[in-house]
Every structure is written in C-alpha cells, then in structure tokens.
C-alpha cells in the first residue's frame, strides 16, 4: 500500500527546519505543505527591513526557489487549513481541498493580538505588522502618511518604528507598561533605547493606551489616549503582541494558554500529530516552566526535534532559553534568560564601560540571565553557560572581564566541545 504523505500546516521557519532535518535524517516520504500565505517561506522578521528599503525584495526568501522540489515537498501556497479532524487525521482547506495524513506537523505560527479599540472597524489605514502582506500594504499607503501611531513598544513595535523613522515619518508609540521592551531589557536598558529613539523624534506615551480611534469620512485622522490626550494619526500600527494561531484547532490539543500542548518529543495529545513553533508551548530551561515563547530559534529547534521524533532518531534536549538580539539603527542589544521584573529574586552585577552596558543575573551559583548593550561581539561564549550551568561556579568571575573568551573554559570541556561540534563525539 502506498504511504500517505506527511502533512505540514504552515510554511515558516518551524516547517523549513522540520523538512531539512527530516531529509538529512534520510527520510524520503513525500510531504504535503499547506500555507495560508501565497509566498515561499520568507524571513518574517525581515519585513521591517523591507519596509525601510534596506533589503532587496528577492532576498527576503529563506531558501532557494527549488527548495520544495528538491526536498520532495508538494507546496500548496494560499491553501489555508480551516478544519482539522484530529481523530481521523483528515482536514480541509478554505478552498475546499480535502486531505488525509496519518502523520502531521502543525506549524501555523502565531497571529497578532488586537486589543479592542473603539472605532477601529470603520477606520482605514489600521494595520498589524507580522506578514509580508502587511508590509506591502503599509508601503502602498505611505506616500500620504505624515503621522504614525504605533501601539506597543515590544520587539515588533520597535522594528516598525525603526523602519518608519527611515521613511521620515512623525512617530508616536503608545505602550501599556512603563518602558520599552520590558521583557528583554532592564530599566536602564529600556532607557538607553528610549533616548536613542527620542533622538530621532519618536515620542513615547507610557502607561497609556488608545481609548478611541477618530475617523473622518472613513479616513483615520487621530487617536484619543486613555489619559485624554489626542494625537494626530493617519497610519495606525497595532503591535501589541502575538498569540498562538489556533482558531482552526480542536480544544483537546490546547493548553490553558491557548497554545498547542506538546511533550518533549513535540507530540501533541493525538498520535501522529506533532506541533512546532509559535503555535505551541515550549519548556523554558531557566524559568523551569512550560510557556509560550514566540521567538525564531525556538521555532527552528522545535521543527528540528519534531522531525527527529518522526524519524525515530533519539535526542537529548535540555530545554529552551529565551534569547533576543535586537537593534535600533546603531544601537544594539542582546539578552538571554531572566533580565528583570520576573518576580524571581536574583543577584545582579551591572557593569558600565565606555560604550557598553552589561548585566549578569545570578541565582545562587546559577547564571539565569544576561544583557549586553553596545558591545555585543562574541557574547555567545557567555550565553552558552545558561545551558551549561555546571561551568558557572568556575567562570562566574571571569565572564565579567572584558576579554572573556572560549579559552577561559576549562581545558577538558574545550576539547570535548570542539570534538562534539565537529561530530566526533
């Protein structure tokens, strides 16, 4: 009997890494790939670079045009899966196409969270900023836009602000919390980014939100803030975070976080159904808890592990560590693990040097977080310790030195690690 193909729902980094790993493992079964979006897989974070005019549109795609063909993947662009019967492993797309796959990867990612805003339905020029289509639609309206309001000072809001600043727009950012990027920067770090952005004329309204959207003849003309202030606005970008894109799924697959619940082999509650990426939960090694961690490397690894599981290849994986490397023009930051405000008491060491700001957070003899602003060269040598806590007692003092390097690692570990990297262990 002919094997049914493996089904993949979603066409972003989790799916790509799944396909690459499966093929590398020598697994040749045909893959049926459903993608809501019309495009070959692209670098979602690159939409801000595209809007800013910093990249050639052809360079947004993650892999070469023959990727699908080369990997025996039947790519179905524009086919959004709207129904999935997980008991019978069958599904249907919006266009009515039916499929049956006893092995399935759900990698449909996340979607923007849209806070309830009065007047938003009638207004034109209100956008989210998570897809290539979003970027192209914003691009198409830009000519007549002067005043932009961005809701949310997280990663997506910051990147939207950066690209529109390159386009010389008058930008205001409205944020519920009291500072920029509160989950990946500490207070001082948020302050440095805020200052840098204010230098470009970007205005911030913290501890605030939009009460009402003002519309004149169906055209957006302003927003009214909770504190009573009004801002002129002819382009509104909603960047208030993302949530798992699970509307088409049965409740039994979901956790109370509304994300797909998976075990360490990326298996869902149903046999033969795996999930990976922004749509599901992940085990956070540092917080020692399962949570929604919608970042790129997690999606990559989850897709990778789902493929190994499906191919029956054993693996060891300790857990994910949240990591972010973010720039606003010439100011760059990297952070990993617990940075601040997590409710977990930490011992912090803060180092201010000429052009760099660093923070290390320890808990007993564990390194639980690190933040680097300004000087970010070679910081992987330090963040690697978040996954190798056994080395921290020996290296705790050394990592605070300016010239910390791989040579500071204990000799036996260095040798072991180099051999492992080269596949000799």
């Amino acid at each position: 009997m002919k094997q049914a193909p493996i089904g993949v729902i979603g066409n972003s980094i989790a799916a790509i890494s799944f396909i690459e790993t499966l093929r590398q493992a020598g697994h040749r079964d045909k893959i049926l790939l459903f993608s809501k979006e019309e495009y070959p897989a692209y670098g979602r974070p690159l939409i801000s670079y595209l809007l800013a005019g910093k990249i050639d549109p052809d360079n947004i795609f993650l892999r070469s045009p023959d990727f699908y063909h080369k990997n025996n993947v039947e790519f179905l662009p524009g086919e959004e899966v709207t129904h999935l019967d997980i008991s019978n492993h069958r599904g249907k797309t919006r266009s009515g196409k039916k499929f049956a796959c006893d092995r399935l990867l759900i990698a449909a990612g996340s979607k923007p969270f849209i806070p309830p805003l009065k007047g938003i339905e009638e207004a034109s020029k209100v956008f989210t900023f998570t897809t290539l289509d979003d970027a192209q639609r914003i691009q198409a309206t830009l000519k007549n836009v002067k005043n932009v309001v961005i809701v949310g000072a997280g990663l997506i809001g910051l990147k939207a602000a950066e690209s529109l600043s390159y386009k010389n727009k008058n930008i205001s950012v409205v944020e519920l919390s009291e500072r920029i990027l509160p989950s990946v920067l500490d207070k001082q770090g948020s302050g440095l980014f805020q200052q840098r952005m204010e230098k470009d004329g970007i205005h911030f309204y913290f501890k605030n939100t939009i009460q009402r959207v003002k519309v004149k003849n169906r055209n957006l003309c302003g927003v009214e803030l909770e504190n009573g202030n009004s801002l002129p606005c002819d382009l509104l970008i909603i960047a208030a975070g993302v949530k798992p894109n699970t509307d088409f799924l049965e409740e039994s697959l979901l956790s109370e976080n509304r994300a797909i619940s998976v075990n360490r082999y990326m298996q869902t509650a149903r046999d033969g159904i795996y999930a990976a990426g922004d749509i599901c939960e992940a085990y956070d090694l540092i917080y020692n808890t399962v949570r929604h961690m919608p970042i790129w490397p997690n999606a990559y690894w989850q897709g990778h592990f789902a493929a190994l599981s499906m191919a029956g290849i054993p693996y060891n994986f300790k857990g994910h560590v949240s990591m972010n490397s973010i720039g606003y023009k010439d100011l760059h930051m990297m952070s990993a693990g617990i940075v601040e405000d997590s409710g977990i008491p930490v011992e912090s060491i803060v180092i201010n040097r000429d052009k760099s700001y660093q923070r290390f957070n320890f808990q007993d003899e564990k390194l639980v977080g690190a933040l680097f602003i300004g000087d970010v060269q070679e910081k992987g040598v330090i963040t690697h310790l978040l996954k190798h806590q056994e080395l921290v007692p020996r290296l705790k003092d050394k990592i605070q030195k300016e010239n910390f390097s791989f040579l500071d690692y204990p000799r036996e570990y260095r040798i072991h690690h180099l051999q492992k990297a080269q596949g000799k262990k």
Partner: protein
Amino acid sequence: MKRIVNRTEYCVGCGLCRINCIVEHSRSKHIIKAFRDENPRPEEAIKVLNRGAQAMAIQCQHCTTPYCISTCISGALQKEADGFVVHHPEKCVGCYSCVLACPFGSIRIREHEKKIFKCDLCRHRKKPACVEGCPNRALIQEENEKKEKET
C-alpha cells in the same frame, strides 16, 4: 567534508594563522596592502586567544548541528549538503542573532557593513590559509570520516 582541527596543545599564539587569514580575505591578497592600505581592513575569521602561557586559535567549527543557523532570520546562514556552514552576505541584515548563539565566539561583526563575517574554510583553495601558515601544525586539515548527515 574537510575540516580544520584546532590542536590547542601545539598552539603558541604566534598569530600567523590570523595574518594569513586577513591577507587571504583582503581585496589585494597582498600583506602590506592588506594591512596598511585597505580601508576598512579585511576581517579575520580566525581569532588567536591568549591567557598567560596558554593559547589557542579558533574559527567557525562548521558544527554538525549549528546554533547559528537556528537563529538566522534571513536565511543568510545555511548548511550545505556536504556539511559546510555557509554565509551569504547579500542576505545578511546584521541582526547578530548568530553572534549571540555561537558558543565559540567565532562569528565576527563587521561594523561598517552591519553584517557578520566568519570562516569559509577557504573552499576556493586546496588548503585553508590559516592551516598553511601555521608553523606548528596546531591547525591541521582533516577529512572527517564520520558521515556529516548525522545530527
């Protein structure tokens, strides 16, 4: 796949590997021009680390399961079928996520370009320039017998 093996026990930290690497990745391929005239100076893909009497040279290990690739938001870093971890600079947007992920510190930032730079194993040459320049065989080139497809 042919790999560079770092035999740290033989490294004296002389830095010739680094000089060879810089010249090889310069426009002129000429040592004096590369160091004195080329602006910005060509980047080194190999770094010589020193700590007292200890030394080691380190460059991209072309890991079998690379952390850097998992973080690359643009597809600039990719693993080729033969195991090479390749950087396509035209696709790099300078997010530096890979720098945050590389446990060896082997991915360099080129500030003036806002892109990264790393070892390409001198695939255009028979032997990598660093290996050729090492007087002590602390860097050698070795065929990895084990199959690279292993994860």
